[in-house]
């Protein structure tokens, strides 16, 4: 990993975007603030309609915020038109110019910046090489495949060396295998160019694999910002836990807090430690989340955190899912990696104990 100095490339400060007026008005973004660091692969993740694309469009300049500031290295760019922002976009539909060749597409930005011809030519050659498209420089964009168009769109956006590259679900039109390849390719490009990437997606797996940090969005708000591991292991809200990966939700009572960690009492009366979202100090009833692979099965008995009945066993090759019904009535899934060897005697309909380890539970804000 290269050094990531804590310098912000983009700062979004209290940005709101309201569409429509009067009764029919909709807040696509509601007082959103987020900082994106230099050289970072930053992902805006959320379901459709969460405001992620709106935020990207505001940074690109295709739309203007109703309120708030967007700073690019400290300068407010929110009022600038797109052609005055050193920010380039890779569009979901690629938007390659159909009447130009691959090379002319890639050189377009530099040409508009008024760069000398030989410099453009050299840079275009360099970009063609970077995305491995040298052989197709003279082709029309309608004569190349979807994956190749994707590469041209990337090269075109990277050629003017933008301060920030915006990517609007660029992989969604590709088939599965190509998408996997492009994920790795994008990481490589980001690494080699050192340009800050802001990537928009609704695909949690894509976000987890590629990002340095992820912002999870819902209904025009950013719910949580953190590394993929933070987001996965320590989701702050139920929506985040639910949207990313599989989750078990349990009701519990707060017992106490010490050193930023909580102790909660489960429905069985057993007390377990749990981590708290930053700055959150609840009392009384709370919901905790436990990932299916963070809990273990054991023999039923007093040593277990909880107990329940095995309702279903789903064998998936690499691992097995045990669907439990807990004594308190809640459903709970345990995922266990398979190994070769004798069966452990857990059968459908049997009673089992459930162990929730010291670092497995997370208290949610709601």
């Amino acid at each position, binding site marked *: 990993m290269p050094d990531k100095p804590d310098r912000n490339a983009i700062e979004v400060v209290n940005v709101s975007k309201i569409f429509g007026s009067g009764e029919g008005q909709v807040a696509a973004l509601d007082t959103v603030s987020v900082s994106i660091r230099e050289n970072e692969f930053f992902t805006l993740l959320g379901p459709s309609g969460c405001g992620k694309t709106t935020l990207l469009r505001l940074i690109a300049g295709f739309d203007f915020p109703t309120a708030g500031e967007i700073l690019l290295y400290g300068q407010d760019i929110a009022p600038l038109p797109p*052609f005055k922002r050193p920010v380039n976009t890779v569009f979901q539909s690629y938007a390659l110019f159909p009447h130009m060749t691959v090379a002319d597409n890639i050189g377009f*930005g530099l040409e508009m910046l008024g760069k000398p011809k030989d410099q453009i030519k050299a840079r275009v050659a360099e970009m063609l090489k970077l995305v491995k498209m040298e052989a197709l420089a003279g082709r029309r964009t309608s004569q190349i495949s979807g994956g190749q168009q994707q590469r041209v769109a990337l090269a075109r956006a990277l050629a003017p060396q933008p301060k920030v590259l915006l990517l609007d679900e660029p992989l969604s039109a590709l088939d599965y295998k190509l998408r996997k390849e492009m994920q790795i390719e994008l990481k490589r490009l980001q690494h080699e160019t050192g340009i800050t990437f802001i990537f928009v997606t609704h695909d949690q797996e894509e976000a987890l694999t590629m990002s340095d940090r992820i912002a999870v969005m819902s209904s025009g708000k950013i719910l949580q910002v953190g590394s993929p591991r933070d987001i996965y292991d320590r989701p702050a809200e139920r929506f985040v836990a639910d949207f990313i990966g599989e989750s078990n939700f349990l009701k519990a009572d707060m017992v106490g807090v010490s050193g930023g960690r909580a102790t909660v009492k489960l429905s069985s009366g057993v007390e377990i430690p749990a981590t708290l979202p930053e700055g959150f100090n609840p009392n009384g009833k709370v919901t905790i989340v436990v990932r299916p692979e963070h809990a273990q099965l054991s023999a039923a008995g007093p040593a277990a955190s909880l107990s329940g009945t095995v309702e279903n066993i789903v064998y998936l090759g690499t691992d097995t899912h045990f669907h439990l019904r807990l004594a308190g009535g809640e459903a709970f899934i345990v995922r266990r990696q398979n190994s070769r060897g004798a069966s452990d005697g857990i059968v459908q309909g049997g009673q089992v104990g459930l162990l929730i380890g010291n670092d497995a539970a997370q208290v949610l804000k709601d």
Partner: protein
Amino acid sequence: MASNFSIKHQPGFTAIAATCFIVLYLPIFVLVIYAFNAATSTSEWGGFSLKWFQSAWQNTQVIDATLLSFQLGAIAALLSTVFATMAALATTRTASYPGLTFKYAAINQPLMVPEIVTGVALLIFFSRIKIFTGYSGLGYLIAAHTAFCIPFAYLPIRARLENMDLTLERAAADLYATPWKTFRRITLPLLWPGILAGLMLAFVISLDDVVITEFVKSGGQDTLPTYMLGQIRRGITPEINAISTAFLLLSVVIVTLFFFISRKRD
């Protein structure tokens, strides 16, 4: 829906279709045949000859009228296409707003108002201007033709613009192109087939007009159609057939070109 229903197999359909085509094409066919008549009649065949084409070719009035038609058509087509392009850009590159439909209607006014009404209105209007200014040149005809050609030029240009992906213009702006450069480098090249189609359609429409031209023209400003109309009043010779045939050929060529250009994709 009955998928095996075919209108072709309804009783009488073939007869109706055949009648329609005969009514449409037979008169034109007869007109073309008699253009090659050696006799001085448009109904009695006197052998094959090209003499009426020759005589039309040497008729200075025909030549003058043809030249005027072309001149007028070219200028009106150019001007109306420029206006139509601007109108099409203004009415498609915008979010819908109250009054937009009214603007469409206003642009297409010449398609809805009967030509004779426009003709009379222009006659009265221009005669006032003539009295005040003393000017009686080609300007009146150019203005009138430009106005009624605009909707015809507008339609193919607007159709082309509506099919054009707005993201392309956004991508150009994202790549540092100013609005003018975006128009020059992206919108205009992609719009070009629509503009050419509009230009040709406008030219044909101008070339063909009789009613408005008849009312607006000053003395000695005969276009080919108004000249032909004048000649017919004095009795028809196959020379008119010959001129019509040449005119027909020209229109067919232009309309065919229009068809291919407007079908061309990127």
